């Protein structure tokens, strides 16, 4: 029986009380001025998507890269945990934590526009799926980079790119390749759910979200040993080099 990596992740999150509390308040602090200001609902939904996606991707990629660099992930796998199991349990625990910590911010946004309860529930589900998908993308980003600086850089590029693909801050021509990208993008469902919640003009993206939520863990499971090995690779110069 593999020991519960996910429970260790939870234990670590709960023992770092300061970070745990900050992770509640930082999203709240960012959402509050948007939700209570005179921001057009469509733009507000876009901001929320970027925020939530960034939170899940950074929250997965940076600690994982750090764990890889200091040899902890190698030690865990050497101790007997399968690489795929380690990565997926980590992503699972991170998704639950992220959902828990982002939901209050989402509820503030919902209350500010007087959203219908059904739409809020849909948005929370989309948020949970986004946290799961973002966490898995974060694993790939961490494995593709060679330092924490690089991880931060890659994540900072990936988040707006994926958000933009998901229809944030643009209206693609129907039938264009951009519209096609949007229907298949990982964060499209969250964007649509937030549009529906804030202005009653969204919906859709659910199929793509389910596909991503299933395909990505399969990919991570299949590539687990390779991703794990890559986590141990560090640029000459370590933390100094991007």
């Amino acid at each position, binding site marked *: *029986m*593999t*020991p519960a990596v996910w429970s*260790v992740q939870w*234990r*670590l999150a709960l*023992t*770092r009380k300061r970070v745990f509390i900050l992770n509640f308040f930082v999203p709240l602090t960012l959402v509050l001025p948007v939700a209570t200001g005179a921001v057009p609902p469509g733009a507000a939904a876009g901001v929320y998507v970027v925020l939530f996606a960034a939170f899940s991707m950074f929250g997965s990629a940076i600690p994982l890269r750090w764990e890889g660099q*200091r*040899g*902890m992930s190698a*030690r*865990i796998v*050497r*101790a*007997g*945990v399968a690489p795929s199991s380690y990565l997926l349990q980590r992503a699972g625990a991170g998704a639950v934590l992220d959902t828990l910590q982002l939901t209050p911010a989402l509820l503030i946004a919902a209350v500010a526009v007087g959203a219908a309860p059904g739409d809020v529930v849909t948005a929370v589900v989309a948020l949970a799926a986004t946290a799961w998908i973002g966490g898995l993308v974060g694993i790939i980003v961490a494995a593709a980079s060679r330092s924490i600086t690089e991880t931060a850089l890659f994540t900072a590029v990936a988040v707006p790119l994926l958000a933009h693909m998901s229809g944030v801050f643009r209206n693609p021509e129907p039938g264009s390749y951009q519209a096609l990208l949007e229907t298949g993008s990982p964060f499209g469902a969250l964007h649509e759910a937030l549009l529906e919640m804030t202005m009653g003009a969204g919906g859709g993206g659910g199929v793509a979200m389910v596909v991503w939520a299933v395909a990505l863990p399969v990919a991570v499971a299949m590539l687990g040993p390779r991703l794990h090995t890559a986590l141990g690779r560090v640029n000459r110069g370590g933390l100094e080099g991007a």
Partner: protein
Amino acid sequence: MVIPGPLDIKEAGRAPGVIRASGLEFRYGGGAPVLKGVDLEIGVGEVIAVVGPPGSGKTALLKLMAGLLAPTGGSLDVPARRTSGGRVMLGFAAEVEPHFESMTGQQNALFFARAAGLRKADAAASVAELIGLLGLGEDAHRPVSEYSFEARRRLLLVEALAHRPALTLIDNPFMGLDQAARSALIHVLRLQSAKRGTVVVASPTLTLLPELADRILFLHEGRIVTGGRVAELLASLGNATRIEIRFERRPHRIEAQFRPGTKVLSDGDPFVLESGRGPAAVGDVCAALVATGAVIKSVTVREADLEEVFRRATGVELSA
């Protein structure tokens, strides 16, 4: 509670504690060779100490055995690197390893014991026993981030041993341990050996190794230069006492007459003699040298010990 010992681990007819290396070579990247053709065979239940000065290749050899490095030449067979029935058969303690810093030592040790395949109750019993034996004590319930270097070393040993591995590899086993913990570690490792668990330790010094190891292998510049059981190694020196003399003023040519049983090994500086008469020969030797006009600056007497085995095999001191 009966915690499974290494004996309980079987693997397709091959004893997992065996290690065989033939012409084993290793170099980091394109660098100079670290190991230059190591041949060794370690049997089940043996406790082996690999001893050599810093840079001799000890740690690389241990990491190759653990599978953390790959040989660049020759062959190395370590069946214990595989798992058997869900249990990890290898226990490895490097000098320093990362931990979950905000978790307690006990929580860390339990995690790694469970990861190695122990059931929850067995892991708890084994970890508790080792924490007591190795003197981690109250530290076990504090976050690792608050640990001293010594406490971290103790925790590492608990983690390496808790799953009762068939093969235990420890780099610098006594580093950072007080005398009580050192004695406890010897006891635990000998117990592993009694249960047919193989143990390989690497150390730059010989401290306590004669008490721990069945065999000592001396490694120098990437090669095993000599090795064997402690008694055999000491016997190979005979009963000779080595006397090294440095001069304040030395005659151009030393033509002293020494008593039978004393022979000159080196006419250089130091002037080195060997005597079968023990330290009693020192006075005669000095008198004979003074009689030739020499002024003696210092005399060093070395009894037959394991450091002398290394010195004779390599011509250099083990601890420079």
